[in-house]
């Protein structure tokens, strides 16, 4: 499933889209950035409630297919700017992390 297909299926908000045809190969959920940094696989949908620009740094370094902010969180201005500059796909939803991960699992199987 591509980032766009996932985003459409879950009616996600699109804060910034870098590569909508990129394949999503799984999911990962975490907010403590050095925990995520050590464990988040490439090409997944990374779910987090963090909204500062360190999210972009971790996403650039771990290279998930997309990053999804849950619980209605919106990226702060620096995060949005850095996501655009560094090519980090940033999506959002009002769902909490549990619901969102559940739906991602249903879609990806």
């Amino acid at each position, binding site marked *: 499933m591509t980032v766009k297909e996932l985003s459409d299926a879950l009616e996600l908000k699109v804060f910034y889209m870098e590569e909508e045809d990129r394949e999503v190969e799984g999911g990962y959920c975490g907010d403590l950035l050095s925990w995520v940094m*050590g464990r988040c696989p490439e090409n997944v949908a990374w779910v987090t409630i963090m909204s500062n620009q360190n999210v972009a740094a971790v996403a650039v370094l771990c290279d998930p297919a997309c990053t999804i902010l849950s619980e209605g969180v919106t990226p702060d201005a620096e995060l949005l700017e850095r996501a655009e500059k560094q090519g980090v796909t940033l999506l959002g939803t009002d769902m909490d992390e549990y619901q969102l991960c559940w739906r991602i699992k249903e879609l990806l199987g």
Partner: protein
Amino acid sequence: MDTVKLVYEIDGDNFSAAGEASTAVKRVLKKLKLPSAIVRRAVICMYEGEINMVIHADGGRAYVDVDEEKIVIRLEDRGPGIPDIDKAMQEGWSTASAEARNSGFGAGMGLPNMKRNSNDMKIETELGVGTTVTMTILFGGEAS
């Protein structure tokens, strides 16, 4: 491959901007066409070290040397030093400030991540003087 030497100043003022040097290092390592597993390990080491310099030591300087067989990352700061290295190395141990925690740091996972993703890690530290962390990533070796 020629030896590549990189130097980055790490700004200690603004920890929400931290990660710039790591991002730059990743770009260079990818250009050198190193295997992606090696790039990932080096980038984890660099990022965690960079963040530590910002949130615990008011910035510092990072030296990254790449030759045919290894990457050596040396992170030097003039921060407070680490009073108990064994404790600092434990997963979950953290003295991060409330502000740092609100930004998503303070899991106490940085130094363990650095150790796990390097083949060798050396910490030299003196209270009130500063800390130097040197990590080596061998192209031939598995992560430790």
